[in-house]
């Protein structure tokens, strides 16, 4: 067994028994990154010196008997998280040379636990995309088939975990950006309830939808990571002051008598046969474990993508107004006046997908269209939320596909943004409703591509979906398969 094959909880055991030191673990991960990075492209910045310094400090803590479960664990972070003193680009040319003066709260929390920072991970530019193809720093490839996309926007996070370049990773999810890449790369990925994790120091895309979450190799690691980052933060006034339970302790409860809802709008006829097959098998597994299935309806599902692409782009157009070449980020070489400087700096710095979304959002917010587009979308969002509230009266969790198909080919949807947007159809409603959901490995397509299943929980019902996921993981072996990187 190679060190890079270990999960968080396995590596923790090795560290505690002094069979491996944190420095040895960091070295093994850095070598693994070097070996497979040319094929995968998960990273924007690798931080070897920092990793070895973090690991040496972790070894001291372990020696002093002051170690937690994450002390000495090598992690990597989507390049959307501010890391003080370490370049943070958000996948954009406009932040090519940006060195943050402070760190995101979730990174600070993990740092306090003694984690080892391996580097910053590739992503769609400003988290806008479903394929990682909009990054200004090159595409990331799916470790299971390097001609395919890893998903997005946390594609680097999912690919790094699947390619064993990091023991676990952190990502963000605005419309599926943790769950969809987790599904395509065969990892576990959890989007917490809105407000569960602080967004302080996380570069904003659509602030009413963005949420931070882990991508891991198994459900236990997911519970460990969530427990470490969850909680109220005075730095983010939208983080919610709800006690953080011991997620790991909740895992083993089983699913006997659990009522699992199957929303009929998610099991459409156009579903890929490989995805359908995995869903059918998962339902059978849960039935065998004693869960009950209930047919439910989320009637406004068909409007979710349209609602999302108005709300998210409107918020993005406002959030991204800060990139004006004045205080940080790219400034154009020569501009005669201030207005030219704004316009040229932005036009040179942003890529096509970011420009497209800023344009859409600006249009939706512009005079004469505000009520027809933006306010209308906010009203439909209310109906989508009400769908979930009503359906959760009859069920404890919901089971759905994560994505309509397994990972598609690089370049396949790049010229058709609408088709790209529609690939998020099963993940977007959860962000609009603000509740929690996760993706877990549930099978493989005929071509050997991972297929994930989505478990959706009630607001602050992370314990319940983790428990449901854990029962499935105990009964199956999908999460144990390993990508062979060619």
């Amino acid at each position, binding site marked *: 067994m190679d060190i890079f094959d270990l999960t968080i909880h396995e590596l923790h055991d090795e560290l505690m028994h002094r069979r491996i030191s944190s420095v040895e673990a960091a070295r093994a991960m850095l070598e693994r990154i070097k070996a497979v990075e040319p094929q995968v492209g998960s990273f924007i910045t690798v931080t070897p010196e920092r990793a070895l310094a973090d690991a040496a400090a972790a070894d001291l803590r372990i020696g002093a008997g002051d170690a937690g479960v994450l002390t000495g664990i090598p992690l990597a972070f989507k390049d959307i998280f501010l890391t003080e003193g370490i370049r943070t680009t958000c996948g954009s040319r406009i932040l090519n040379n940006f060195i943050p003066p402070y760190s995101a709260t979730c990174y600070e929390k993990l740092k306090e636990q003694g984690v080892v920072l391996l580097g910053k991970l590739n992503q769609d530019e400003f988290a806008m995309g479903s394929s990682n193809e909009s990054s200004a720093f090159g595409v990331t490839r799916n470790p299971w088939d390097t001609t395919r996309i890893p998903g997005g926007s946390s594609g680097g996070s999912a690919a790094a975990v699947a390619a064993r370049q990091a023991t676990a990773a952190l990502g963000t999810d605005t419309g599926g950006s943790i769950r969809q890449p987790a599904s395509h790369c065969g990892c576990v990925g959890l989007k917490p309830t809105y407000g569960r994790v602080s967004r302080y120091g996380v570069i904003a895309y659509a602030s009413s939808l963005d949420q931070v979450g882990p991508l891991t190799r198994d459900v236990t690691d997911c519970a460990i990571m969530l427990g470490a980052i969850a909680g109220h933060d005075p730095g983010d006034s939208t983080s919610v002051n709800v006690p953080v339970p011991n997620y790991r302790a909740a895992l083993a409860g089983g699913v006997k008598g659990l009522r699992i809802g199957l929303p009929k709008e998610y099991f459409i006829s156009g579903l890929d046969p490989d995805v359908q097959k995995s869903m059918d098998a998962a339902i059978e597994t849960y039935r065998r474990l004693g869960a009950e299935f209930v047919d439910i309806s989320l009637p406004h599902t068909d409007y979710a993508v349209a609602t999302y692409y108005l709300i998210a782009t409107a918020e993005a157009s406002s959030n991204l107004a800060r990139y004006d070449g004045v205080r*940080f980020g790219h400034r154009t070489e020569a501009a005669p006046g*201030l207005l*030219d400087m704004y316009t040229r700096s932005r036009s040179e710095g942003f890529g096509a997908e970011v420009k497209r979304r800023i344009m859409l959002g600006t249009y939706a917010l512009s005079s004469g269209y505000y009520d027809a587009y933006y306010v209308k979308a906010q009203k439909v969002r209310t109906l989508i939320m009400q769908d979930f509230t009503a359906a959760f009266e009859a069920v404890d969790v919901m089971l759905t596909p994560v994505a309509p198909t397994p990972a598609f080919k690089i370049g396949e949807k790049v010229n058709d943004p609408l088709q790209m947007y529609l690939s998020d159809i099963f993940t977007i409603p959860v962000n609009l409703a603000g509740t929690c959901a996760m993706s877990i490995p549930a099978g493989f397509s005929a071509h050997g591509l991972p297929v994930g299943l989505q478990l959706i929980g009630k607001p602050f019902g992370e314990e319940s979906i983790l428990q449901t996921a854990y029962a499935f993981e105990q009964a199956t072996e999908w999460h144990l398969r390993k990508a062979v990187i060619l």
Partner: protein
Amino acid sequence: MNITVADVEHVARLARLELDPDEKSLFAGQMDAILGYVEKLKGVNTDGIVPTSHAVPMENAFREDLTRPSFSIDKALANAPDRVESFFRVPKVIE
């Protein structure tokens, strides 16, 4: 929907973006398709429905008005594309 190049130019101006002729016609077509797709929302009856701006119902989050340590001037200016003394420098605004 029928988004023209002139519409694209108007929105680009509002968004402080400068597009080349190819981008303008590309965006006109793509925005037309996307806005055509979102037209489907018009079919939803939202009479009497309150718009949602936030998933979690929330009151104002107040904190005590206390002085706290903040960035030094040099730290705050460390990423400035251009600076002079303790200021961000920008092109001339008033002739």
